[in-house]
C-alpha cells in the first residue's frame, strides 16, 4: 500500500501560499493568554505537487461508478450526471453564508422551495423537511416527530414495529427516539407477515417502519391491508423510501397510506455518494404531521421566499442551518433534467435491469423469492456455500473483473445474501458482461474453490484481514511508528 501522507513531506515545505499580514499585528502572545497557546502542532509539511500526487494516486485505488459497474444493493449506485456537479459549483451557490439576509439568498431559497414541492409531488406527501443530512437522519427526524405527535394526542405508545429484513438504521433510529423495537418476520413470499403484524400492532405500537419496495427488492403487495391494520390500531405508517428508484412515476407513498417517508437524495436522485457521504435524507409527511416538522421550513409570501421558524409544535432543529444545500441542488437539477417522463423511464429501466439479471442468473444462484422483482434482485449463495464457497468469496472474486461486488449478507433473513442493484444507467452490454462473469464464478466455485477463497487476485491488495483489524486496533497513525 502507498505511504501515508504523514510519512511524506519534509520540514519547511509548504503546500500553500497565504497573504502577508496587512494589518498591524502585535503577535499571538499579545492577544491570547499564554496558558491557552499551543506549543506543538504536529502536522506534516508538504508541497502542493506532493499532496496532489498523493491523493491522485490514492484515488486510483478506488472503484467508482465512473470507472466500474457498481451494483451495490440498496445503494442505488446510478450515474451521477456531470452537469449536476458543474452547477453545484457555481459561486452563486457555494459562496453563500447561511446567515445572510433572506433578501440576498432568494435564489437559494427558491430552489429549496421548488425542490420540496417536487419531491412532495413525487412521493405524494403534503410537506417535506430538507434538513436531514442522510437517510438515517431522516428516519430519526420522523421518529421524533411521531413521538411528539402521540405525546400531543396524549397517547403513550412505546413500541415501533420493524420487519426483520429492514435496514439496520431503522431499529437504530427508533431506539434513539426512545422506542422499543418489535421485530416482525418476512413471510414466504417476501412480504411482511400479516398475521404476525396483526398480533403486535396494538395500542402500544406507535408505528410500523416499512421499507417499500423492501430490501428484498419486492413491492409490499398487501400494502393497503398493512396500512389499514396500522391505522386501525391508531398507529402511523412510516416509509423508508431508500428504494424509491423503483417507483418513480409508478406509485406514491402517500397513495399507499404512508404517513411519513424519508428519501435518499444520494440514491434515487443521483447525488453522488462521495465515498460515504454527504447525502440528503428529506422527510415528507402528511398533513397531520406538518406541525411537528423541524424548523426552519422555506415558505413563500408573494414573490418572496423566507425561512419560516414559526412552527410552535416543531420538534426543533435536527442540525445546524438548513441541510446539505449542495446535495439538494443536485437532486433539483436531476429532477429538471429528467422530468416526469425521464423519472418514469429511470424506474422502468432500473427494474428491467434487475429482472434481466434475475432471469439470466437464476439457474446459477439460488433465488429465494421466485418472482418478478423491482429495482434489485436478491440471490443466496447457499448452493455455493454447500461447496465451501462463501458469498464473501464470490464478492471478492468480482473485483478481479473490474466490477464492484453487490451488497452481501444483507438482508439478514436471506442466508449468504447477494443483493444486486444494477440501476437504470447501466447498459445491457454491461449486464451481459456481469452475467458472464457471475456464471464463470459459479463454475469456479465447483471446480476451483481455492481460487475464490483467495480472491481478489488483481486488486491493489489481496484479501484483507478484518479480524486482525478489529483485534489489533490501529485507527490513527502515530509518529513513533
Amino acid at each position, binding site marked *: *500500500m502507498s505511504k501515508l501522507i504523514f510519512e511524506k513531506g519534509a520540514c519547511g515545505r509548504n503546500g500553500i501560499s497565504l497573504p502577508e499580514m496587512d494589518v498591524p499585528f502585535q503577535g499571538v502572545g499579545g492577544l491570547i493568554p499564554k496558558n491557552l497557546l499551543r506549543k506543538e502542532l504536529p502536522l506534516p509539511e508538504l508541497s502542493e505537487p506532493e499532496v496532489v500526487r498523493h491523493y491522485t494516486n490514492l484515488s486510483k485505488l478506488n472503484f467508482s461508478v465512473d470507472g466500474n459497474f457498481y451494483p451495490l444493493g440498496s445503494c442505488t449506485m446510478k450515474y*451521477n450526471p456531470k452537469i449536476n456537479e458543474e452547477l453545484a459549483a457555481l459561486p452563486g451557490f457555494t459562496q453563500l453564508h447561511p446567515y445572510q439576509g433572506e433578501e440576498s439568498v432568494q435564489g437559494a431559497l427558491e430552489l429549496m422551495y421548488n425542490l420540496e414541492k417536487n419531491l412532495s409531488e413525487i412521493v405524494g406527501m403534503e410537506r417535506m423537511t430538507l434538513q436531514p*443530512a442522510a437517510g438515517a437522519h431522516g428516519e430519526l427526524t420522523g421518529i421524533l416527530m411521531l413521538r411528539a405527535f402521540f405525546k400531543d394526542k396524549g397517547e403513550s405508545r412505546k413500541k415501533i414495529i420493524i420487519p426483520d429484513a429492514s435496514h439496520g438504521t431503522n431499529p437504530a433510529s427508533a431506539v434513539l427516539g426512545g422506542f422499543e423495537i418489535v421485530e416482525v418476520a418476512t413471510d414466504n413470499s417476501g412480504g411482511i407477515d400479516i398475521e404476525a403484524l396483526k398480533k403486535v400492532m396494538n395500542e402500544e405500537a406507535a408505528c410500523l417502519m416499512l421499507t417499500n419496495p423492501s430490501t428484498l427488492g419486492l413491492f409490499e403487495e398487501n400494502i393497503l391491508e398493512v396500512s389499514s391494520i396500522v391505522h386501525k390500531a391508531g398507529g402511523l405508517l412510516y416509509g423508508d423510501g431508500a428504494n424509491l428508484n423503483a417507483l418513480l412515476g409508478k406509485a406514491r407513498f402517500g397513495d399507499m397510506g404512508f404517513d411519513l417517508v424519508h428519501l435518499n437524495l444520494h440514491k434515487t436522485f443521483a447525488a453522488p455518494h462521495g465515498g460515504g457521504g454527504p447525502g440528503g435524507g428529506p422527510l415528507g409527511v402528511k398533513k397531520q404531521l406538518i406541525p411537528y416538522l423541524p424548523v426552519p421550513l422555506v415558505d413563500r409570501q408573494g414573490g418572496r421566499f423566507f425561512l419560516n421558524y414559526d412552527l410552535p409544535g416543531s420538534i426543533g*432543529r435536527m442540525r*445546524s442551518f438548513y441541510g446539505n444545500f449542495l446535495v439538494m441542488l443536485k437532486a433539483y437539477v436531476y429532477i429538471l433534467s429528467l422530468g416526469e417522463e425521464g423519472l418514469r423511464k429511470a424506474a422502468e429501466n432500473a427494474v428491467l435491469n434487475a429482472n434481466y439479471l434475475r432471469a439470466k442468473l437464476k439457474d446459477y444462484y439460488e433465488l429465494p423469492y421466485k418472482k418478478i422483482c423491482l429495482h434489485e434482485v436478491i440471490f443466496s449463495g447457499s448452493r455455493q456455500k454447500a461447496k465451501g464457497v462463501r458469498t464473501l468469496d464470490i464478492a471478492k472474486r468480482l473485483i478481479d473483473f473490474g466490477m464492484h461486488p453487490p451488497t452481501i449478507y444483507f438482508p439478514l433473513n436471506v442466508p449468504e445474501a447477494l443483493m444486486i442493484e444494477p440501476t437504470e444507467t447501466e447498459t445491457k452490454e454491461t449486464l451481459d458482461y456481469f452475467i458472464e462473469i457471475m456464471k464463470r464464478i459459479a463454475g469456479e466455485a465447483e471446480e476451483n474453490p481455492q481460487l475464490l477463497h483467495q480472491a481478489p487476485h488483481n486488486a491493489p491488495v489481496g484479501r484483507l484481514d478484518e479480524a486482525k483489524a478489529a483485534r489489533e486496533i490501529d485507527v490513527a497513525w502515530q509518529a513513533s511508528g
Partner: protein
Amino acid sequence: MDYSGNTPLQQKKMLAEIGLRSLDELFQSIPEGVKLKSSLNLPKQLSEIELVRELKDLADKNKSTSDYSLFLGGGYYDHFVPSALKYLIGRPEFYTAYTPYQAEASQGILQAIYEYQTFITLLTGMEVSNASLYDGATALAEAAFMAVRINKRNTILAAQTLHPEYLAVLKTYLAGLDLTLRVIPHNEGKVDLKELKNYLNKDVSAVILPQPNFFGIFEEGEKTASLARKNGSLCIASVDPISLGIISPPGKWGADIVVGEGQALGSGLNFGGPGLGFIACRMEFMRKIPGRLAGKTRDERGKTGYVLTLQTREQHIRREKATSNICSNHALSALAAAIYLSLLGKNGLRKTAELCLGKAHYLSEKIAEIPGYELKFQKPFFKEFVISSPHPVSKINRKLLENKIIGGLDLERFYPVFKNCMLLAVTEKRTKEEIDKLVKVLKSL
C-alpha cells in the same frame, strides 16, 4: 435526459428473456389501487443548455462572497479553499464511490479516511477520531449520547455560550432518550464557573464547553474539565479547528470528547451544508464512538491495507444496539479536511489562525474607535467578536450590503437582551482594504 442505458430494442430483447411482454408487466406486483394513474405535477424537462440558464438565473438571485465581502460567522466561516483541494475531491474515483464496504476495491478512500482520522487526532490531541459525522451540531449531540453510554448518567450540562443552534439540536436529540439538558449561564460572554459548580451533581454525564465560544471568546477549558472530572462527569469540547493552529488542543487541557464543525477545513460555505462533523475521544472510549472507523490491517501476503473496523458498534450489524444510527456520513468532506490540512501543514494552519486573529483584532479596534460603538465583552477572543452599536443591526447591514459588504450576525435573533449587538467574524481572506471599508461605512451611518 434520463441517462438510461437500454434502447427500446434492447428493452424488448430483455423482456423476452425475462418472459414478459411489456415494461408494465414488470410492475405487476404493485396493486392496481396504488398504481399512479394520473401524471405528476412536475416542471417540464430541460435540456442541458436550458438547465445551465435556469440555474444560473437562480444563482444570480443570490449575493455571494465572490462579489461581496463577508464578515459573517456564527459557526460557519469564509475560510480559503485551496484550488488543489477542489480538484482532488472532484476526482470521481472518490466522489462516485460508496461507503467502502468492500475494502479491496476501496483502498483509496479507506486510506484517506485513516489519514483524516489521524489528522483529527493530531489537531485535537485526542487518540481516536471516527470517519466523520454530519455537522458540528449533530456531532455534539452524538457526543452527548456517547457520554451517557459511557457513564450511564442522564443529565447534560451545556454552556450558554454554545452556538444556539447546537443547543437547539441537543435539545431535540436528548428529548428522544428522555435525557435532561441544563444550560449553564454565562457571565459577560463566558461561562460562569461558579454557576457551573452549582449545576454539577451525580446525574451529570457531561459538561459541554465551546472553545472559543459563540461570541469568539476563549473559555476556561482546563478549569471546566477539571471540575467535570472531579464530579465523575466527562468534558466535551466543541472547537473551531482553525483556532487549533495556535490554541492549546483539548487533549492537553483535559477534554474527554472533542467535536466540532469542520466546514472551515476545505468545505466552503455552501449556504450551510454540506460541512463536516468531527468527533474524537480518548482511547478508552473508542468502542463507544459513533459511526465508522477505518483501521489498518494486512492482506494475506502481509501487505498493509485499510478496512472499516469495529463495525459491531454500528447499526448495520448491531441494529438497535448500535452506538448510533448514522450510516452515510460526510466522507467527502472528511477527505477535503485531510487534503486541506496536508496542503496547509504545520505552518499554513498556524499562519491562517494568526491572520484571522490579527485581522479580527484590527477590525475590533477600529470599530471601537468609532463613537457609540464598543466591544461588548472585554475578553480575549479569536476571530470573532461582539460589538454593540448605536444603530439596529438590520439598519447597519442594509447599508453595508449597498456597499457590497455582508455584515455580521444580529445577536438579538438568538439573545433578545442583546439589542443592537452584532457578531462579526474576520478570516484570512479579508483584506485591510475590505476591513477599512467596513469601518468607513459604519462611520458614515
